[in-house]
């Protein structure tokens, strides 16, 4: 059964709450450093954080790139709308 451990001055639950910003690299340097030190000493958070990050990476691997398809349909719609003005 999981417990909320405090390692490097931060609890697992707080690490969990900051995972999104950690994955996005959006944390300030102090917090980032604190989380990294927590991860070094916490196997749960290392494993879970790794899976969490991998899931976000998998989701984003399907991120749409610039599409240049079917501009005719778009142009037709624009013309139809402009004609109705």
């Amino acid at each position, binding site marked *: 059964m999981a417990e909320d451990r405090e390692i490097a001055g931060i609890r697992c639950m707080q690490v969990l709450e900051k995972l*999104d910003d950690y994955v996005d690299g959006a944390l300030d340097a102090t917090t980032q450093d604190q989380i990294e030190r927590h991860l070094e000493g916490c196997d749960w958070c290392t494993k879970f954080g790794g899976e969490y990050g991998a899931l*976000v990476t998998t989701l*984003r691997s*399907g991120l*749409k790139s610039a599409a240049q398809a079917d501009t005719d349909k778009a142009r037709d719609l*624009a013309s139809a709308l402009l004609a109705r003005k």
Partner: protein
Amino acid sequence: MSTRPTDAQGDDELLRRYASGDDDAFTEFVVRHHESVVAWVTRRIGSRPEVDDIVQETFMSVMSSASNFEGSSTARAWVYGIARNRIARQFRRRTAEPATFESLGELGLRAGWGDPEVEASRAESIAEVHRALKRLPDDAREIIELRDLEGFSNPEVAQILEMNVPAVKSRLHRARLALMAELNSEVADG
């Protein structure tokens, strides 16, 4: 953080030019966004005849309010917000807060946090992840689609969903945990 297929400044410029009488700028704007709006509306409501109507109404609304666009976020997020309102109007979707109040700790446990039985670095295929995504409640699925599949930033998602950024981050975090939990249950079910 993610890069957009079309540059935001160009979008603002097109709306400004259209507002001052340049119809070609509107056409260019539609060409830039039409396909992704069609794909997103289809993802939201499925492949139905209403998709075309909603897309058409969305760009009609863009046309009539181009001069009011203030660039509070990005034009692309603004267009998605309009499309989302059209969908809500058509299908009377409730956009209320989710009714479940599972604590973050409980949600984390279901997602496999602190569970020694969960296999290390189990890699899910994109297909598995998308199947699990389809089983999430609509509000959770929607925020993951916007943030991770469409690549919108947190402030852009906030504009589309008419929420503040902290609320977006909180809902996104819960949605991703729920997705992990769903993937875990898929494994448990065989």
